[in-house]
């Protein structure tokens, strides 16, 4: 790898983490009162907000209505000031459109859409500060927001990125590690059954290493699901304490 040494001889990464160590995850549900569901997540320096509206009647053209399940509508956008170089447009560029599509696919696999025929669920994800793993932070925030909205899910959807340096898999890449041009694998997992909702890998990797890399990503996703579970439980405890039940 040119220039930066992503993994030191002692086995530490640029920010002092071990190879499979995750960044600190902090999250909160019910950030906004007006939306049906909302959540905020911080994964290290990456910060994401997710808002869910619905299920409601299908907006716009009727032709989009599905008679057997709900339509999932996603928009991924990044605040213009979220990156170190200012972005011109918050959404609508090729990358954001691709991300919106990925989010849609991920949540179609997880939400029990057949319970809401002829309706629509909106999931809007906003990246407020970007430092690698934007997609995974967005998915994790959106999962919490969907739960906050009370929409039934098959399981938590947890996402994490993984890279591969010096025969060692690294999990939860930061921006410096992601932009190095090495392998980067993004995975969204339904941890209980071990189902993969989304898998994407850029750059080349020897086939023999793929299994170890996926193994590492799956372990990371499972650890994140534990954190999300804790957040949900704590939120429920707070809410039930407030309502006095």
């Amino acid at each position, binding site marked *: 790898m040119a220039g930066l040494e992503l993994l030191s001889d002692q086995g530490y990464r640029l920010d002092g983490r071990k190879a499979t160590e995750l960044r600190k995850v902090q*999250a909160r549900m019910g950030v906004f009162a007006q939306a049906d569901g909302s959540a905020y997540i911080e994964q290290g320096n990456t910060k994401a907000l997710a808002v869910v509206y619905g299920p409601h009647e299908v907006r716009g053209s009727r032709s989009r209505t599905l008679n057997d399940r709900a339509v999932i509508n996603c928009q991924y956008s990044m605040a213009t000031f979220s990156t170190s170089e200012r972005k011109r447009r918050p959404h609508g560029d090729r990358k954001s459109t691709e991300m919106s599509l990925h989010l849609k696919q991920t949540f179609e696999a997880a939400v029990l859409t057949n319970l809401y025929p002829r309706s629509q669920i909106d999931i809007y994800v906003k990246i*407020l500060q970007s430092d690698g793993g934007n997609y995974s932070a967005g998915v994790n925030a959106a999962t919490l927001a969907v739960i906050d909205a009370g929409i039934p899910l098959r399981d938590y959807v947890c996402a994490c990125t993984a890279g591969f340096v010096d025969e060692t898999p690294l999990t939860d890449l930061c921006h410096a590690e992601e932009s190095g041009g090495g392998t980067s694998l993004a995975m969204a997992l339904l941890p209980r059954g071990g189902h993969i909702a989304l898998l994407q890998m850029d750059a080349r990797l020897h086939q023999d290493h793929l299994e170890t890399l996926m193994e590492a990503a799956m372990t990371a996703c499972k650890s994140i699901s534990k954190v999300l579970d804790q957040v949900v439980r704590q939120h429920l405890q707070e809410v039930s304490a407030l309502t006095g039940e």
Partner: protein
Amino acid sequence: MATVQISEAEKVYILHGVRDDLRVDGRGCEDYRHMEVETDMVSNTDGSAKVSLGHTDVLVGVKAEIGKPRPVARDEGYLEFFVDCSANATPEFEGRGGDELGVELSNTLYKVFGNRSSLDLKSLCISPGEHCWVLYVDVLLLQCDGNLFDAISVAIKAALFNTKIPKVHLSEDEQGGKEIELSDDPYDCMRLNVENVPCVVTLCKVGHRHVVDATMQEKACSVASLIISVTHKGTITCVRKVGGGSLDPESIFEMTETGKRVGKALHAPLMELLHKEESLGKKRDKVGFLG
């Protein structure tokens, strides 16, 4: 714009309340809702602030970039405004739905903030005619519950107060070309003087009276509103009438007087709060969206 629909009975209820100086949420006609301000929210920016006013939430980020001065003002830097009405605020803003409101808001922001009287634009100049600082002020609407202008203006003032522009050193090489060197030390930075930055007060005409900081419900009852930007000395820098209805000159005069009084009173507590937050330095627990 994000609006709500209310019934005739609700309208009458709100109108009668305003007439008796008692609004639906218990406020008087010149009272603001609970406001929360926090600065230094996004580390990728040079200055940022989040303001929540009732259920209205805005996040403002300021980024300083080196650009070329405008030909009409060669020894001054300038500000650029962009308002992102994100779909997070309301599903109506999805896709290009929020563009119209965004342009309307940012055009007003240019008039209110982007001039010599509110900021010392000369201090943004690096070398006349060649290089200057361009401040990109990006506003992100996260939740709309009326009174966007006031919340945005407070957030912009707080974000500009929080802005730290790195100091630059100009050096000339042998060919006479200028080289700009940015200071590496994060504490070696320039701060902006935000003393004269105005705050916007929006007054909504409801029935025969006008109210400050109208909620969406109250806005739905009002015929038109007046936007007034006021500095800490009570000077009015910009007045605009918005909304579909019409106002008679007499009520405009009354509203200006109220706006002046309310706007002037807004500055001192805000500045006190910003200085207090600044003095805490690194000891401050950042709350952000997690609080």
